[in-house]
């Protein structure tokens, strides 16, 4: 117990140091207001080439929110079509680029006229624009796809759409195929991604620690945050900051409601944790399709302007990401202080260690669990908002796609260890973004999941876990 405490304190120290570092970084930065004033589009000059195109649906309406991934000598990046169906990507090195249209982001009912033309390879020269066209509509007669395969109503053909990529972070492209600059670029993206992931995984880990429940519906809490922010900004016209706060409040309320309405009654009925886990799976499924029911299958952009890029030494990063990093670091430091420095936080850790003993020493376990649900859901909602900004867009299954990365992070750090989840998330973030350097970018989540399996093979208790915790 004493060793655990010292370890926690050192982690908190590291956290504080991280916060200070980030703060000083930020002081060097430009005014964040420019984040929204930037103009979209790409101007080809001596050092820049453009890839662009316009996507229209079968009846010639602009297809909004379609995500395209571009990969080539200048690195990987992605674009989302705007209100006119236009998309554009700026590249800084000439050569052959692969443009992949994420078919899952097409408007409902739309298909590519020629699925074989996706992905498509284009040759880009600096100082000029190159088009990459993806016509939509029915395949030509006798064509490919499901003309003969879809004779029966496909169960699940619309439902389990892709939940791989939601979008790629802004500005993860620079320089040649491998260079120290690109390494630094990917490492910085990884750090941002990891810290944002940590917001969500800390909640997952706290819930596991206090109740023993592997919450498969935690990803939907992340999506909830992003969708509330999207609604706030795009439908209610609120400023981003207000919408973000609103999202966190709604997230916290949903955590309270969930525990009061589902999990507390189930614990009182003595429904076991495995059974509860399957209930979370059902809940996750119901929530995901509820989001899709109301918001459709396409990408939802919280902020539609192109982010301002800031150059820090070898690294190009968007101002939004830096602000997200700061907010996340401050919040995580706050959580650390809560867990280590306050009575309630200490009670939380006691429940997490041994609920029966905690109850015997006068801690109201149910109240602590309720608090953990509220805290965990609020953190997940914040993570969702920031992740939605970082990935340029959110969608009904964003949280679902991130869920396994969260589990990987939580397992890596040791199930139920809040600080382990933080460390694990940063490792997973770095792995996801830096694996781009060696494997194709659409496999980068697979790399992180492989790590999860390797950790279980080699050190099942995780980085910070104790061996006794595995059974």
């Amino acid at each position, binding site marked *: 117990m004493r060793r655990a405490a010292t370890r926690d304190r050192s982690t908190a120290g590291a956290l504080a140091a991280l916060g200070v570092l980030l703060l000083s970084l930020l002081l060097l930065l430009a005014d964040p207001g420019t984040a929204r004033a930037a103009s979209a589009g790409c101007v080809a000059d001596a050092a820049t080439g453009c890839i662009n195109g316009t996507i229209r649906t079968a009846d010639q309406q602009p297809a909004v929110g379609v995500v395209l991934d571009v990969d080539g000598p200048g690195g990987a990046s992605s674009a989302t079509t705007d209100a006119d169906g236009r998309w554009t990507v700026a590249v800084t090195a000439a050569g052959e680029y692969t443009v992949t249209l994420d078919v899952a982001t097409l408007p409902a*009912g739309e298909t590519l006229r020629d699925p074989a033309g996706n992905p498509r390879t284009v040759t880009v020269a600096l100082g000029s624009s190159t088009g990459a066209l993806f016509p939509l509509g029915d395949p030509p007669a006798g064509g490919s796809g499901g003309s003969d*395969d879809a004779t*029966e109503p496909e169960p699940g053909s619309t*439902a389990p759409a892709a939940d791989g990529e939601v979008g790629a972070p802004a500005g993860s492209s620079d320089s040649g195929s491998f260079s120290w600059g690109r390494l630094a670029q990917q490492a910085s993206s990884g750090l941002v991604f990891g810290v944002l992931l940590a917001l969500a995984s800390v909640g997952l880990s706290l819930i596991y620690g206090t109740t023993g429940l*592997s919450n498969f519906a935690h990803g939907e809490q992340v999506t909830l945050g992003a969708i509330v922010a999207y609604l706030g900004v795009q439908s209610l016209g609120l400023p981003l900051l207000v919408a973000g706060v609103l999202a966190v409040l709604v997230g916290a309320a949903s955590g309270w409601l969930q525990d009061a309405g589902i999990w507390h009654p189930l614990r009182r009925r003595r429904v076991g944790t495995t059974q509860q886990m399957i209930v979370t799976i*059902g809940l996750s499924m119901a929530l995901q399709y509820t989001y899709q029911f109301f918001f459709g299958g396409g990408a939802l952009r919280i902020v539609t302007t192109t982010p301002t890029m800031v150059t820090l030494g070898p690294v190009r990063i968007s101002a939004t990401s830096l602000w997200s990093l700061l907010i996340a670091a401050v919040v995580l430091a706050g959580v650390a202080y809560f867990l280590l420095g306050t009575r309630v936080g200490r009670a939380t850790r006691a429940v997490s260690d041994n609920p029966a003993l905690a109850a015997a020493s006068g801690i109201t376990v149910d109240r602590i669990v309720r608090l953990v649900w509220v805290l965990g859901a609020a953190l997940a909602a914040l993570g969702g908002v920031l992740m939605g900004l970082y990935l340029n867009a959110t969608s009904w299954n964003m949280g679902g796609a991130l869920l396994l990365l969260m589990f990987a992070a939580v397992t890596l750090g040791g199930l139920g260890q809040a600080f382990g989840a933080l460390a694990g998330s940063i490792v997973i973030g770095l792995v996801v973004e830096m694996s781009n350097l060696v494997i194709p970018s659409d496999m980068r989540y697979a790399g992180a999941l492989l790590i999860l399996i390797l950790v*279980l093979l080699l050190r099942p208790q995780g980085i910070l876990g104790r061996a006794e915790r595995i059974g």
Partner: protein
Amino acid sequence: MDWSRILVNVAGEIFAPTTAAYALAAIGLNVHFGLTGLLNMGQAGFMLLGAYGFAISTIAGWPLWAAVLVAIACAAVFGLLLGIPTLKLRGDYLAIVTIAAAEIVRLVGRSTALTELTGASSGLRGNSYKDTFQDASPFPDGTVALGPFEYAMNASNSWWVRIVGWAVVALACLLIWLLIRSPWGRVLKGIREDEDAVRSLGKNVYSYKMQALVLGGVIGAVAGIIYVLPRAVQPDSMGRPMTFFVWTILLLGGAATVFGPVLGSIIFWVSLMLIKSVMRVGVPESIMRTEQIEQFGWIVVGVTLMLLVIFRPQGILGDKKELAIDVR
């Protein structure tokens, strides 16, 4: 669409190939969960691997039997690889690892790096791998009507797929019935109830769990083949939701029973079809669009799963005493 047509459509789901494929996948999961108590959350991964193994080796020109063997071998190797790190750990670790492994299979399958082999996210076209299966049919080509049901004899969504699919399901049921009564099956049930007790009897629990994992996975791979025969291999339609549907089916029919998965699959697809077709007729477009009806169906599935697990975890046919949930 009139009511008799809806009725025919709904009744058609009772013996549709998809129903057979899901029943078979649930039988495989029953070996994992119902008999042994393993929380396999990656059954779709086994199915996708089976589908890829079958389709890719057929496209490479291998005969039907060899392609099926390849699919089985893929699933067996996958089961072994999964089992080695996880079977010694607590149940929820197995759940997380299997779900992650199934995602890895899907993500690698849809990666553009393997476009030549797997067709990336657009998948493999049905016509490219169906021929050997259709040529194996002893029946003449053409369309055959049986009562109100009219399907092609051999092409794509055919009687031939239905006959083979349900024959395999029947065989699998027989196998499970024999296994449950065998000494081997009794050891598995013992592991489900109390692993330590079985270990103290000198049984190698790890090895038994591994055998169960591989056997259930192989059944899942065959289910994957049947699933893709009337359509195409689409990695994104065989992701996590598919695993969850299989779980719903198993828990609906009743885990640890012989006919539970079959009954569950039939009820699942028939009621889903019924809900969707009735809503398509009864709910005006202004209230719910067609694709929203589709999503509404899946929301109902999710809620059903929650209610089932809470209020009737033994399912329709199950015995509450033989409940595999929460043995640890």
